[in-house]
């Protein structure tokens, strides 16, 4: 038995942003939006289009998350701004980091609304308007003590507005990172043992969407390809409601204490290889064959090699050191992960694998 939850309303169409935003504010009778984005992270056009979607009766305020705030401080600062603005809805747009911070802040406000001023909406809604890196799968608002049992509950805003026209003109690097992140999330969800048949299907569809279009997704700045990428990314987010995988959890640990910006997609590209390697070790032959068949891995090729060959096509930093992680951070993350997962390898084994990802790129080529 499992709990399957898909709650958010998702608007997904080319050029839908302004009309969908206006319509949702009207439908939910919201009039005091707080617009939240990350400093210097979105184009003026993106910001202006969000503002253009606000109906005339809205009295909005804005907040930009400063670049150098860590997660905890960013969440706390945003909570404070929501309270000060008496916002009844937080409209988070742009990076997945922004969306994560907004989600965590809204959850905190909703959970502890009695602590705050009575004039503040006790239940601010969250509208998410993702950029190229999509809607995050996140669990950062959960207490560390629950890490062993946490699930990839995913972001659960009231409304998500996905408009592929918003990501036209994105750079190859950011697009590649989004592809890697999406592929990693879909694979991780599909390969995990949890019982969630819809999530399995959604994940597989996400993988196939990426694989069908991989070359064009990287090189072609067309609306069709942008739509495909955002569709696959949404699949990744929804599929992760099944369970966050090893790569996601490791990524979260590594990102948590790192000074931003870290290329999360590039990090996930490396960590999913570690996850697949760990899974291969623990699987039965039957499970392994099932996974390979579902993903269309050619006979005679290992799942890890198949994935490595795909990931190599993405022009991204190819080691943890190039992403700014040193041996000390890797060892610390390995230790933390190993102690929190009952089925995880030892910290030493995991650390070795991470180092190998860092040092032996050719092993996966």
């Amino acid at each position, binding site marked *: 038995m499992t709990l399957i939850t898909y709650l958010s309303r998702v608007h997904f169409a080319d050029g839908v942003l302004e009309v969908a935003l206006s319509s949702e504010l009207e439908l939910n009778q919201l*009039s005091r939006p707080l617009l939240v984005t990350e400093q210097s992270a979105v184009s*003026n056009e993106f910001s202006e289009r969000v503002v253009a979607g606000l109906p005339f009766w809205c009295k909005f305020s804005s907040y930009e998350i400063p670049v150098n705030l860590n997660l905890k401080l960013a969440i706390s600062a945003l909570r404070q701004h929501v309270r000060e603005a008496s916002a009844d809805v937080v409209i988070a747009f742009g990076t997945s980091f922004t969306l994560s911070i907004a989600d965590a802040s809204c959850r905190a406000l909703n959970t502890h609304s009695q602590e705050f001023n009575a004039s503040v909406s006790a239940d601010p809604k969250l509208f998410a308007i993702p950029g190229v890196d999509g809607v995050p799968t996140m669990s950062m608002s959960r207490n560390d003590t629950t890490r062993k049992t946490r699930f990839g509950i995913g972001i659960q805003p009231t409304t998500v507005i996905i408009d592929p026209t918003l990501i036209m003109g994105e750079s190859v690097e950011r697009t590649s990172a989004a592809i890697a992140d999406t592929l990693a999330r879909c694979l991780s969800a599909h390969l995990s043992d949890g019982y969630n048949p819809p999530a399995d299907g959604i994940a597989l569809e996400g993988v196939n969407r990426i694989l069908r279009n991989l070359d064009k997704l990287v090189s072609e700045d067309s609306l069709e390809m942008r*739509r495909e990428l955002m569709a696959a990314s949404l699949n990744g987010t929804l599929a992760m409601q099944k369970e966050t995988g090893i790569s996601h959890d490791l990524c979260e640990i590594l990102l948590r204490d790192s000074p931003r910006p870290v290329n999360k997609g590039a990090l996930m590209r490396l960590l999913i290889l570690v996850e697949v390697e760990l899974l291969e070790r623990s699987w039965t032959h039957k499970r392994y064959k099932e996974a390979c068949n579902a993903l269309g891995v050619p006979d005679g090729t290992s799942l890890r090699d198949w994935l490595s060959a795909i990931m190599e096509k993405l022009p991204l930093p190819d080691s943890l050191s190039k992403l700014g992680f040193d041996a000390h951070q890797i060892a610390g993350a390995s230790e933390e992960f190993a102690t929190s997962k009952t089925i995880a390898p030892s910290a030493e084994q995991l650390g070795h694998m991470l180092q190998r990802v860092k040092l032996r790129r050719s092993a996966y080529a």
Partner: protein
Amino acid sequence: MSTAISVCHGAFGRAALYQLDKSLITHAHREGHLIFHIEGSLSEVEVNYKRQTVDLQHAAAVSPLEPHSFDVLDAEPSVVLVLYIKPIWFLENSQSAEFTLRFGSSVVVRTQPVNAVVRRFVSLLLNGHNMDDIDTLLFSLSKLCYEQTWQSVSTPGLLQNKCSKFSDYRIRRSLRMMQQCISAEVEMEAVARSVGLSRPHFFKLFKKQLGVTPNVYLNTLRSERAIDELVNTEKTVTSIAYDLGYSSQAAFTRFFSSNVGIAPSEYRRVADNPSGYFPIQ
């Protein structure tokens, strides 16, 4: 005098049965718009500067922000069914990934299925209506019309129908300014200057990106705001007129009648908004 026989508001937008004996000047809506002749004098609609007759064989389809005007051809009033379809509602119901309610052409041939739905729809408007029935029928009707308008479009026609996104930041800023200053006396010269353009360049760019002039767009916003206030507030017509920047109720009534078709007090008398789909104040 033009009168409203029935007006219904919902998530879909608006549906109205009007008896019109006067012309409507060139105006636009942010909704998709369908006009069906029901009885009385025939009428002509000019859509994007092309005239067409609206009769029992043909209806008019007007895309969002497409300029159009309306003329009654004889002295006798014309009874018309007019639908204002919100693009987001159409999108949600049609499950399309391409956000548009742009009709392929402005002429809809009233086929037997179209006429059957029109008759049922008018009957619902006249005899009391259930919102679910209105919703279902309206979607059937708009989808039938939408698909039909694309059937006869040739490839060159596709290019003519290309929807230009208002991607110029100066135009986006001007849209915001107009929305914020709707109740004041808006000088287009000042709007143009504030976004860094000369008046002629601003008008040219605005028209190119939105398909309407800034003045028509501002009138669209004013009409929307006026309808909202008439339906959802208890403010007097005079008060609404002053709030929208008109010097008198008479001036506001002239504006409203020439853009919406009937007088504001008449609209309020008939309008039915059972679901409260309009904005809170």
